[in-house]
């Protein structure tokens, strides 16, 4: 039921967001039409961060309560977060090409996202490398906590590093037109709904796998 509502909501928002981006919002003067990437680029970043925050909270809760559901929530959110971060990196890189003539720029936010991406890939890998799933859950929770607390320090260090070695900066800020703000806000809601939808789906999937495992055990011991 919840996933039906979320599916409908995200579809409606998605269409609205696309309509706003392609038909309503005015073209930004300095960057031209590619600036419209911004309206999805930013929500992706925002929701990656939200996803990793959820991983952090669920990891703390898992270590505290030791209930499987917290672990399922954490790992599902990490996976969706990695998908969002990947898309954020791709969109940032495609945006950099026409504006700066390069596919990659060591812009602080982009660089921080790259480091984050690597941390959460490691998060997903630790689970696979652990010798038992309970251990994997515990180790992943530790990485989820440590990794998230690392984010502000990573961002600070990269920002400070860039101010000393200046280079291309994607976010020149300045949303002059109210229609731009509206589009951004709608897009942020769109991706938040998408995040919620994917999370709910992924959690249900993982719970199903868990049930299947339990059933199989039951069938074996019959």
């Amino acid at each position, binding site marked *: 039921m919840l996933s039906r509502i979320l599916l409908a909501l995200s579809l409606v928002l998605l269409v609205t967001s696309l309509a706003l981006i392609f038909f309503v919002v005015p073209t930004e003067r300095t960057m031209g039409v590619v600036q419209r990437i911004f309206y999805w680029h930013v929500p992706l970043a925002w929701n990656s961060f939200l996803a990793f925050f959820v991983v952090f909270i669920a990891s703390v809760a898992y270590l505290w309560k030791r209930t499987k559901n917290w672990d399922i929530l954490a790992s599902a959110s990490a996976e969706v977060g990695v998908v969002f971060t990947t898309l954020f990196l791709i969109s940032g890189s495609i945006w950099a090409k026409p504006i700066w003539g390069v596919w990659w720029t060591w812009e602080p936010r982009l660089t921080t996202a790259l480091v984050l991406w690597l941390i959460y890939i490691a998060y997903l890998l630790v689970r696979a490398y652990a010798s*038992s*799933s*309970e251990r994997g859950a515990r180790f992943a929770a530790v990485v989820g906590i440590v990794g998230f607390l690392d984010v502000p320090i990573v961002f600070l260090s990269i920002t400070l590093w860039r101010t000393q070695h200046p280079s291309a900066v994607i976010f020149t800020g300045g949303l002059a037109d109210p229609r731009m703000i509206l589009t951004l806000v709608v897009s942020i809601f769109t991706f938040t709904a998408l995040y919620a939808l994917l999370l709910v789906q992924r959690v249900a999937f993982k719970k199903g796998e868990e049930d299947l*495992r*339990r059933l199989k*055990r039951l069938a074996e011991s019959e």
Partner: protein
Amino acid sequence: MISRDDVGDKAIEVRKLTRTFDDFPALRGIDLEVARGESLVIFGPNGAGKTTLIRVLSTIIRPSSGTVLIDGLNIKEHAEKARRLIGVVSHHPFLYANLSAYENLEFYGRLYDVPDLKTRIGEVTTLVGMTARLHDRVSTFSRGMQQRFAIARALLHRPQIMLLDEPETGLDQQAVALLWEVLRGEAAARRTVVMTTHNLERGLDLASRLLIMSRGKIVFEGGGKSLDLAGLKQAYQDVTAEAGCPQ
């Protein structure tokens, strides 16, 4: 917390203990009381949960559910106090190969806050008959010698309770004999001993009480004196036969 008086003479009290590894139930509801000064020997086929039980009692593995009291101390809340009362001997000697036996014992002595450490190291080394090799590196020792020092290490802090997980693994006959001699001395000293072993004969000889475990449960319990070797062998065979073919 339960006060010491309520506990009376129970060294170990285990209630409804379970432990699962992922989905595998290694321990499925263990209830066990061990009186102070008792020598409890646990038998059972491989995979019966003996090692898991010893590891839970020695606070290495946490229980999935149930309670474990060591001398009235719940190991959940008072793990450190409980650890002080326990001496553990397992398949591994827990000795650092690059250090001499003396340095190893000194190290563990510091962790346990053993008073008058030097004298105590001398005492336990004499007990296991290894005084001559005390200052040699552990890496130069045979398996049997390492295990002798492992026993010395476990006795170092005068534990009230000795937990031994198949301590005779890899030992030569002489070392096994010595180990048993030491343990008998320990039992006589009103020290509680809990041990797992495959050796029915020697186990029976030492035990004041014995258990057989199978598939995570205690399936047989008998007094050491009322049971002879033939009876134990029969009971053990019954259990393994049952465990061997489920249904």
